[in-house]
């Protein structure tokens, strides 16, 4: 199997798995202890969490704190609902975790459009009275990098908080400048599933959505997993150390894949993008058939979360593509552990299968 679905989830880094194992102990060692227990075993587990928190914080802007959550969906819910802001503006290409939560809070929310390249305008109008603006750093379906620094500045001038879903950018790009709230997920950066974080700028007040034991400074109750935190921390540290190397590798893979798939049209900007995302369309291509023909290649027809639903991608629609164009589109996602040979092999197989559809 060749895995080309890096936006849905990423292979667990061996270093992240190693970092988790000591905290998954049985009775022979006390590392399994509850990090919120005041005894020494609990304190040791709590210390491991603080080390991980520092490692994760290195991927985020200075001047704030990292709150661990069960993942980005929870982090985004905490940011949007916990902010208490009632009038929202979100980009048309946000992930469902932002779109659905924002619509739940403000059914009349403002949608910030994108151009045909999949980019929100730096000068888009933010209506007066908007309480919170959410624009993602890197789109999960088409990989476009949004001008979040400029948009954060626009939001600030409008008196609104700026929330950035940095799930696809964290560990790959520098953190979004000017954001007040940033959500990230471990399993998108070669860490484990079941953990993410919300970064909260100092001075930004949130109300918790999960009440209970009062962990995470009262902002997020529930026993934290030292293992998941340590795995997240190790993955973050690795991504931080390899940021340049990983980006160069992804860029090089991108050129390889583009060259191996002549005739396919790129969805989204070629210039403003994370190169590990290649969203392509080919007139007349039956992507569902392609997927069932090529069972040994794992790729996506849209975002993993929506692609089971059969509904056309709201992201591709926002670019102005027709439903037919959207149905002719596929997404290849690759990165750190993808080899050129794998990618070339998969791309050639896809091209040949597409040609057979004629």
């Amino acid at each position, binding site marked *: 199997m060749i895995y080309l*679905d890096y936006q849905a989830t990423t292979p667990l880094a061996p270093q992240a798995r190693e970092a988790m194992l000591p905290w998954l102990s049985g009775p022979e060692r006390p590392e399994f202890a509850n990090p919120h227990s005041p005894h020494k075993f609990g304190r040791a587990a709590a210390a491991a969490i603080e080390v991980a928190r520092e490692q994760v914080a290195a991927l985020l802007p200075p001047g704030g704190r990292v709150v661990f959550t*069960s993942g980005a969906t929870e982090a985004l819910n905490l940011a949007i609902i916990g902010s208490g802001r009632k009038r929202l503006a979100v980009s048309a290409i946000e992930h469902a975790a932002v779109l659905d939560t924002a619509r739940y809070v403000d059914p009349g929310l403002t949608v910030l459009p994108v151009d045909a390249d999949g980019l929100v305008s730096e000068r888009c109008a933010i209506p007066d009275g908007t309480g919170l603006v959410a624009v993602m750093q890197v789109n999960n379906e088409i990989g476009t990098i949004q001008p979040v620094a400029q948009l954060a500045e626009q939001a600030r001038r409008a008196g609104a908080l700026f929330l950035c879903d940095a799930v696809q950018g964290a560990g790959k790009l520098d953190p979004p400048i000017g954001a007040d709230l940033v959500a990230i997920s471990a399993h998108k950066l070669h860490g484990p*599933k079941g953990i993410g974080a919300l970064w909260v700028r100092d001075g930004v007040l949130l109300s918790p959505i999960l009440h209970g034991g009062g962990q995470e400074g009262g902002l997020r109750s*529930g*026993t934290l997993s030292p293992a998941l935190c340590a795995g997240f921390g190790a993955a973050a540290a690795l991504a931080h150390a390899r940021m340049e190397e990983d980006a160069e590798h992804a860029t090089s893979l991108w050129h390889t894949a583009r060259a191996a798939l002549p005739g396919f049209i790129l969805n989204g900007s070629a210039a403003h993008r994370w190169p590990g995302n290649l969203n392509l369309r080919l007139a007349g291509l039956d992507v569902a058939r392609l997927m069932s023909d090529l069972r040994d290649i794992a790729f996506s027809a849209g975002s993993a979360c929506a692609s089971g639903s059969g509904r056309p991608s709201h992201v591709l629609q926002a670019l102005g593509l027709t439903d037919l164009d959207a149905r002719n589109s596929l997404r290849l996602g690759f990165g750190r552990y993808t080899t050129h040979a794998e990618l070339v092999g998969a791309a050639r197989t896809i091209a040949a299968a597409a040609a057979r559809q004629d």
Partner: protein
Amino acid sequence: MTDQPLYLDHAATTPLLAAAREAMAQGFERWANPSSPHAAGRAARAALEDARADLKAALGWTGEVIFTSGASEALALAIARSTVPLAAISAVEHDAVLRHGGTAARLSVDSGGCVDPARAALPGLVAVQQVNSETGVIQPLAEIAEAVRRAGGVLLADCAQGAGKLALPDADLIALSAHKFGGPVGVGALLVRDWRLMDPGGGQERGYRGGTENLPGVLAMVAALQAGNAWLALAAQLRRGLDAAVLAAGGEVIAAGSQRLATIAGYRLPGRSAAAQLIRLDAQGIAVSAGSACSSGSLRPSHVLTAMGLPADAAGEVIRVSIGRETTAAQIERFVSAWAAMIPDRASA
């Protein structure tokens, strides 16, 4: 005196079972997103659905299952999305329920820590835990369920401490947490008798929860449940000995006359604060707690013990000892001698 770690805080969290660690390691190999439509994603989805069926079989549950990040999330989800509003909670609920309690009625408990079923006969959502995390007291949930149903209400049972040890209660919504029964931290479930009891929301878990599923955690949780609980017979025997030793040394067993889970007990040492006991025991490598792990860092008296009528100063002298699968008679003896040595008369002698 030995410094060997002695862990008697299993109500806070339990060691990970070898079978659970094994299942987790296999889950780490199966890292595709269960919502992805390709073969790798579908294999992860199939493993997730098999695990759901196995969990139901292990628990004897015939309703629905929503996997969550733990009991706190499961309880929050149940309360937020229940189609009927929260009408009442018991006065001894865990903070994970208590803090969501708002203006809901509080069901008081008797001196043995039990809710009067007749008072639970309310037409809304009623939250009563299965087992108290500080005292081990088991609520009469069969009678409470009957009263709630008769009144047209819905029963939410926090089974974080009881699941995997006791049979599930006859409740409509049940929250559980893997790390209390030998599974990993970071995964749990909300059991739902019928989807009509909940309003949907979220793109995963049949539309009732958003977020990529933690498949390794889920697999490990199920493996932990499947490991069974035959060890509880030994735990009950150890606990009888522990209770007797505490009484003989001049201590007090909290809710001694109530039906209690074999693994959790509250003990009062008159004249010695819980904080002082904890520090002394901790210095000897013995891990116990005062109240629940989350609140034990604070100095406020336990709401559980005060609800049972204990004066604040007496409540401040109670520690929780919770035993587990690997606890031995020798460990209990070591605890008792360390604990009895703190009794004021002996300490000053």
